[in-house]
């Protein structure tokens, strides 16, 4: 069973068109949405949550059609949006009571534990917290009601590297339960590289590719060469290039370059940057 399914999802704004998107998040897996600003990551997540209405296509979450009224599915979802929007004047205790009224499985003790572990001040109003602490509060709330699916839009934005590492570990622990899944978008590709089973690249509203992370890393590699060598490669072998004054760096399909070529491993960040550049070229 898939935790999330998107079929032909489309959404248009002036000067921007998302999709059509076809995407699956298998249950028990972590899917990372990677894309530059304005690529459509938040739009995709908002369409899944029913905050915006798609122009075409369908989405389902935990087996229920996506939309604003999917109450049961929302009981099983923990969500952190790019801007955590708890009311400004509320403190942690009041937020906890609101969440207890919203979620059947709200675990007050667990929420308190996350507040302590993540060092979130409980005596300050939400509006007085730093951006990082607000994000941590949102993450603590999302993890404290026995959710089966986490939907996270830039959850590590605004966090310092140490806390980011802690938070990534929390997400990693969450998926130890085979029934738990995560959809996460981020600019910080290194976080996704640590965490994700699947990676989806969005660029200007289009899905460049969606693949298992390990397969991507096996399938693609980087070569450094001159322009003449690059031109000699088979069409389709090169997915993107980056030129420096000394050489050309190219993202290639390993199976499409001549045997003996020195192909070094690629990181997800390099893969994304070069794919986007390739698309622009």
């Amino acid at each position, binding site marked *: 069973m898939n935790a999330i399914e998107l079929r032909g999802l489309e959404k248009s704004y002036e000067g921007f068109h998302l999709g059509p998107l076809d995407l699956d998040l298998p249950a028990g897996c972590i899917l990372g949405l990677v894309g530059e600003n304005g690529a459509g990551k938040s739009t995709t997540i908002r369409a899944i*949550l*029913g*905050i*915006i*209405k798609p122009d075409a296509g369908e989405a389902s979450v935990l087996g229920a059609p996506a939309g*604003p*009224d999917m*109450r*049961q599915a*929302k*009981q099983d*979802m923990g*969500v952190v*949006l790019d*801007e*955590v*929007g*708890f*009311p*400004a*004047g*509320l403190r942690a205790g*009041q937020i906890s*009571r*609101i*969440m207890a*009224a*919203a*979620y059947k499985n709200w675990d007050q003790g667990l929420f308190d534990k996350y507040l302590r572990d993540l060092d979130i001040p409980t005596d300050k109003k*939400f*509006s007085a917290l730093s951006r990082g602490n607000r994000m941590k509060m949102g993450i603590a709330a999302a993890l404290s009601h026995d959710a089966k699916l986490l*939907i996270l839009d830039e959850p590590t934005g605004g966090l310092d590297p140490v806390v980011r590492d802690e938070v990534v570990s929390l997400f990693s622990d969450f998926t130890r339960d085979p029934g738990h899944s995560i959809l996460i978008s981020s600019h910080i590709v290194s976080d996704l590289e640590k965490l994700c089973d699947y990676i989806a690249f969005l660029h200007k509203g289009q899905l460049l590719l969606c693949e298992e992370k390990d397969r991507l890393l096996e399938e693609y590699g980087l070569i450094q060469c001159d322009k003449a060598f690059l031109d000699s490669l088979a069409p389709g072998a090169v997915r993107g290039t980056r030129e420096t004054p000394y050489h050309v760096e190219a993202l290639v399909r390993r199976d499409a370059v001549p045997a003996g070529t020195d192909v070094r491993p690629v990181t997800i960040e390099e893969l994304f940057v070069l794919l986007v550049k390739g698309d622009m070229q």
Partner: protein
Amino acid sequence: MKALILTDLYQLWINFKFYAVFIVVALGIAAFSNGDSDLGFFFPMYAVLMCSMMGMSLVQLDEASRWNVCAQTLPCSRRDQVTGKYIVTMASFAATWLPFVLLYAVLAILGRMAWQTVAVQSVLLLIVGLLAPAFSLPPLFRWGTARGRVIYIFLVILMAAGIGGLASGLATLDLFALPALPMPLLAVLAVAVPAALFIGSWALSVRWYDKREL
């Protein structure tokens, strides 16, 4: 919806608790200046109007903190979000209106106010308390607080112009020549029409908010 109403109650307490002081002061002024004096009616009217507009203030607070978007990730519908605001508005209105009605009744028992004035002023407060949110909330749910407030003000100006026109038209009529409605029917209409408009406003807000993209 329980979570949404609880949030609104926290918001009311945090942001508007000083209104309770104002209501007590207004009750005092109304009590000592006799309910049927200008002062005894102005302060209750002002207090009821302010409290019945709490829904509008809560929608503004929600948008400012982005809670309106965050609340959509909770297990509740958009209909719940709208209904919660109408319930809190009604509760806030009732919590202000009822003390004034009770005060008027006490003044009438003490012989400082006529029972007919008690009825008229109570109904007028009720009309204002129901109509103000009935007209202000739907534009906010449809267009958001920035545009919605402008549209609401425009509606108020239109209504004022309409009432002015109606009043000048009525001035030329010989009202005594018109068939008079029986008093009980008039009283029922005075309560039923604003109540129906309030319910209609809720239905319109639900419909409009459902279509809105946040």
